[in-house]
């Protein structure tokens, strides 16, 4: 009951016209920033930092919330329309979102992504209100061993999923793992594969890998066909909405993915990228239309979209209830809070209930406002597809470079970007799936570090990786993710033989 009263008080803060206005402005700004490749919510919130000096703590937090959620909505727009994710969390939206757009179903894709984001975000906000404490308690139970197993689970799901050729998926993963080792190794303090280049000491940002493989790769691939006029620009557009049939297919994936995304988001350092990729793989595993995944299955877009919005809200938990930033974005938000003289953490709710509950209420409000804003906005954005490739691709190219520079302000990354773009083309030609490589580049670094952390803490005793209940559960997930595709492949073969006989 207490919670309800508090939440109502929060709403009475968040629904004031001034704050509604701030959420709207922040949300639109966030959507635009989120759409630009390389610029994610963290950058968006950081840009706002100087402005927050002059606002009160509640106003600035609510605005940042608007930007944050706006960026989560916006991130997938560019995934769907130009196959270039705005940030890591929108990566999974390219898998089926872009094929949908290519099939002339961009309207449904944009609509379902906004709807899934709204539902995912709202479910997560409810969970946040009710279960912030227990989830925070679960999050601290994740030690290095559990992190390691979580990363292995994510990787094994993706690799075993790469259709047809597991060997090629494995190869792709190894390239990604190699990329993730570049930089200063935390456990030894030594440099690896930096070749004396200072910029490489901080490693290769996985966003550079994503932009290189997707945006540049896409453009490079089209060079061959561009003058032949291969792809036709779409000229007629339908209303931004989905059909009943599409809703029926997406309903359960959206509902299932939200809590999963929420919990993974609440783990410090895991985040929306992991959450959306895991939920995508889950749905692929559960779906009856496995073949359609990767070729424009609407549930393959709905699930990760729901998950990444839920994760972005989950990521607020470590900050609000533990005083620990759970992601880059919340780290910036925490910095802003400190500057405003508010100490985030367990005492926040007691000392500044207006701010804390106003923030939680604004999560609900921001999700609704952004869904309302995004659907008409999508009607404008979808016309991107009317731009002929000859004009669109140079724009994508420049956006890719600008986004890349925004990540690390380093020119060295340009070379890496180009190399990866070429790699994307070659991998496409050889039919090597790129998603294992990208996931490995994202989780590889942490997977390795977690392993070594756990190994060192346990004094070189490997049993640490199977001692806790969470570890055992994750081991089961890993085994299933490897065995299930093998079993279903064997059964499919057997069935085929039967038919042939």
């Amino acid at each position, binding site marked *: 009951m207490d919670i309800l009263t508090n939440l109502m008080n929060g709403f009475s803060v968040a629904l004031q016209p001034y704050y509604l206005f701030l959420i709207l402005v922040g949300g639109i700004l966030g959507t635009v920033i989120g759409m630009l490749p390389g610029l994610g919510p963290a950058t968006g919130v950081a840009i706002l930092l*100087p402005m927050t000096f002059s606002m009160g703590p509640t106003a600035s937090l609510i605005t940042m919330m608007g930007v944050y959620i706006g960026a989560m909505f916006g991130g997938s727009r560019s995934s769907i329309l130009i196959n270039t994710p705005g940030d890591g969390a929108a990566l999974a939206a390219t898998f089926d979102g872009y094929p949908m757009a290519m099939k002339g179903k961009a309207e449904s894709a944009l609509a379902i992504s906004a709807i899934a984001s709204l539902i995912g975000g709202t479910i997560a906000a409810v969970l946040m209100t009710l279960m912030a404490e227990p989830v925070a308690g679960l999050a601290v139970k994740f*030690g290095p061993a559990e992190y390691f197993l979580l990363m292995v689970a994510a990787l094994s799901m993706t690799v075993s999923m790469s259709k047809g050729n597991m060997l090629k998926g494995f190869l792709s993963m190894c390239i990604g793992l190699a990329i993730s080792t570049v930089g200063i190794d935390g456990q030894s303090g030594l440099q690896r594969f930096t070749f004396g280049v200072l910029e490489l000491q901080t490693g290769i940002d996985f966003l550079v890998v994503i932009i290189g493989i997707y945006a540049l790769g896409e453009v490079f691939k089209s060079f061959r066909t561009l003058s032949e006029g291969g792809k036709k620009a779409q000229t007629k557009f339908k209303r931004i909405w989905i059909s009943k049939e599409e809703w029926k297919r997406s309903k359960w994936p959206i509902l299932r993915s939200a809590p999963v995304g929420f919990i993974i988001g609440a783990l410090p350092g895991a985040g929306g990228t992991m959450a959306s990729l895991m939920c995508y793989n889950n749905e692929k595993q559960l779906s009856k239309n496995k073949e359609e995944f990767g070729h424009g299955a609407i549930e393959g877009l709905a699930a990760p979209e729901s998950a990444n919005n839920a994760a972005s809200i989950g990521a607020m938990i470590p900050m609000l209830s533990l*005083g*620990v930033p759970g992601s880059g974005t919340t780290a910036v938000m925490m910095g802003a809070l400190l500057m405003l003289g508010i100490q985030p953490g367990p005492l926040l709710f007691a000392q500044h209930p207006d701010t804390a509950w106003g923030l939680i209420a604004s999560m609900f409000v921001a999700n609704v406002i952004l869904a309302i804003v995004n659907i008409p906005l999508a009607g404008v954005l979808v016309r991107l597809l009317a731009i002929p490739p000859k004009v669109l691709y140079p724009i994508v190219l420049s956006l890719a470079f600008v986004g890349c520079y925004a990540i690390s302000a380093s020119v060295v990354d340009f070379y890496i970007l180009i190399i990866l773009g070429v790699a994307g083309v070659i991998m496409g030609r050889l039919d090597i799936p790129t998603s294992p490589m990208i996931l490995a580049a994202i989780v590889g670094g942490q997977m390795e570090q977690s392993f070594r952390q756990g190994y060192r803490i346990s004094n070189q005793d490997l049993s640490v990786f199977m001692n806790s209940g969470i570890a055992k559960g994750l081991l089961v997930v890993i085994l299933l993710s490897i065995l299930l595709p093998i079993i279903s492949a064997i059964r499919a073969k057997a069935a085929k033989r039967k038919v042939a006989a």
Partner: protein
Amino acid sequence: MIKLKQLLTSAVIATTTLLSVNSAMAADYPPHTINMVAPSGAGGGWDLTIRTVGKVLKDTGLVDANMPVVNRPGGGGAVNLAYMQTQKGKGDLISVYSPPILLTNLTGLTQYSYKDTTPIARLITDYAAFVVPENSKYKTIKEVMDALKKDPKSVKIGGTSAAGSMDHIQFLLVAKAAGVENLRNIDYISFQNGSLIAQALGGHVDLISTGLGDVAGLVESGKLHALAQTADKRIGSGLIAEIPTVKEEGINVTFENWRGLFGPKDMPEEAVAYWRDALQKMVETTEWKEALKRNGWDNAYQNDQDFTTFLGKTNEQYKGLIKEVFGR
């Protein structure tokens, strides 16, 4: 009087510079725009410091140039340090640094050191805090050190920075002063994904070596227990003031996580004098004092000469330790 003398000296030197080197620039100092550089991304300690300095200088009218904050991250500050080498002799770039400017050089991650900059002022300091979960068996830092003396593998130390950087070194400095041998064998575990404090809350590491400012809130809420901090006196108020110093525990050492401002090497003397004057005034303003209080920073002002001496001394101290632990 001394101030006046310094001012006069710098005025004389400035005039000489004005005549000999670059009359246009010297006459115009401060220039229209001075870039305030955080050698990291937005949101960290360096970023917060330089933004606060810029804001206070602007609000108090002490500096009327534009002072945009530029984030130049990479290599733990080394990328910006390398960039500063291309700006030698210029006066329109001010960057913030802290002990890593010494450590990255000593561990061989960059060839440049503080000697390739112009130290302008030390401003603030935070201190190291050694923190354990609330149900830890260690009640004092002395007990931790005794355990390490018996078996260097018995206490696992967590930190945010990479091995050989600040969180690691600050602990080893204290361990060394406490008489722990075999510093090399102490297991330090680096958590760079932002999960360090959660790891401590979950009891996955035995002790975390971090900044006092980073854990103040959690210590106040009782979820973490701070065994000791490394200032030479008690700090703050309330529960924070109850944290003993390592000196009180009989370990004779202090560690300061200072933050200071640096210009490019060979910065014109006139620019140095300008900043000396402006910053000396800034640290006396109520705006600055409020900012210190708000962020839990301790005033540690030193002017350029004192700061340079301090850097030389500290560098030697770290050099010895790193040689002992890493053999490089």
